[in-house]
């Protein structure tokens, strides 16, 4: 099978149960290589648990996950250097400077010519003036740019993003989205994005997976979903799904 035909992510009948509670309940989906796919859902819908299982941070109760053609249960360490992750809810060491943090993560990901890679990322992400400042002393927007630099340090084929622009002002958030679009286009990378920000999802994602109560309740392009639900925006569709309203057509 040619490599391009292998989906970047394939999830089959994924279940995560905590006692009687099923946080993820029989989820199956594929993310095509090179696509940007959004994972939408309210709090407790199962988005973060799903992403954590894709990363291997949480073990599924049952089901199968393949990432970049490898079974994450048995070959996780064969693909971890080809993927990366960014979330505003996971910090980088505060006392280390931006350069030190990027150097450490560059070494962890096996990046060659780390200094050149850091310089290139600093230029791309407007971090040059921040490289020798302590990461903990940066503003929220600056920290997000540093986290994004860490997420791109290994030029990943697959990027998992958990609400990447949460708590950012509109200007900074737009700046981040533009960088993500550019990276994906130039690298041919795949992005799976969990977000509550509907304009962000509409702008970035070619495909959207909507989750509720641990299950996938709908899937399609943002425009297709808006059309199918007879709504004006994806946010209206999100509210329909969250509140259990039926599809109009």
């Amino acid at each position, binding site marked *: 099978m040619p490599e391009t035909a292998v989906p970047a992510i394939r999830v089959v009948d994924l279940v*995560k149960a*905590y006692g009687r509670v099923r*946080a993820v309940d029989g989820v199956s989906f594929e993310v095509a290589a090179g696509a940007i796919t959004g994972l939408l859902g309210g709090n407790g819908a199962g988005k*973060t*648990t799903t992403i*954590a299982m894709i*990363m*291997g*941070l*949480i*073990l599924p109760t049952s089901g199968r996950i393949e990432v970049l053609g490898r079974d994450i249960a048995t070959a996780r*360490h*064969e693909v*971890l*250097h*080809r993927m*990366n*992750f960014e*979330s505003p*809810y*996971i*910090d*980088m*060491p*505060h*006392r*280390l*400077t931006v350069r*030190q943090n990027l*150097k*450490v*993560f560059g*070494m*962890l*990901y*096996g*990046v*060659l010519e780390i200094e050149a*890679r850091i310089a290139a990322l600093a230029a791309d992400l407007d971090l040059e003036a921040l490289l020798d400042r*302590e990461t903990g002393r940066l503003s929220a927007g600056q920290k997000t740019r540093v986290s994004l630099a*860490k997420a791109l340090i*290994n*030029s*990943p*084929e697959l990027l998992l993003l958990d609400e990447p622009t949460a708590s950012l002002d509109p200007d900074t958030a737009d700046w981040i989205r533009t960088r993500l679009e550019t990276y994906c286009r130039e*690298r*041919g990378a795949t992005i799976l994005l969990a977000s509550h920000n509907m304009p962000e999802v509409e702008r970035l994602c070619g495909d959207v997976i909507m989750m509720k109560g641990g299950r996938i309740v709908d899937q399609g392009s943002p425009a297709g979903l808006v059309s199918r639900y007879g709504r004006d925006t994806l946010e209206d569709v999100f509210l329909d799904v969250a509140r259990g309203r039926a599809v109009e057509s």
Partner: protein
Amino acid sequence: MTSQHLLRDPATAGASMRRISAMVLRYWFLLRSSWPRLVELIYWPAVQMITWGFLQMSFAGHEGALARAGATFIGAVLLWDILFRGQIGFSVSFLEEMWARNMGNLMMSPLKPGEFIAALMTMSIVRLIIGFVPVSLLAMFYFGFNLWSLGLALAAFFGNLIFTSWSIGLVVSGLVLRNGLGAENLAWSLTFLLLPLSCVYYPVETLPGWLQSIALMLPPTYVFEGLRALVLDGVFRADLMLKAAGLNVLLFSAALVAFFALFASARRTGSLLQLGE
């Protein structure tokens, strides 16, 4: 462009020295940037040494058994510090990741648990050296106890104690991974259980029979017995060191099994994503 153009061989089959070095470098950057952390490494060992050093000096003014017991105090204090500070060095480096909320980044990276453990063991020695060398010099020049003159015996004592400290550090780290920072206090208190049980300041015969059985299952007991034999009788008891080494192999193996079991349990329960209290 594939990522292979940017990345070196990911070394998926075995451990990567580069990833271990990355973690050691990360902790070195942290220590270097924080003078309170550096001072703390020396402060408590120095305070303890000064306290016990003066006590020993007061004993030295007496004759007989009291004077002989006093002669072992400084050595016991220094060796106890290897055990305690070795474990603290391991556990605190681990806890730094929890405090920094960086564990998700590490667990998502190609860093393997075994490489993480190797980095923590290395940092335990680095932190120990920073704190221990100045204090051992204080003991030598002010209290007249030259630990370095023990030579091979010191290496045997150190090797056994540091392995015990890593075993405790592994269990504490596994418990914190599984249960969150609510288990953090174990890092500061668990080793103290060994203070009475491994007979740091008195011979094993001092304990009641049933407690002696427990003490003799602990590797440090043989180290401190060995220290007393060396200081009081001038005899290096290699047999005691071998017993300690054998027990350490068992203890460290059990601690590794416990760590990996707790790590797997943390992945099952999702606690790697909820690393607060």
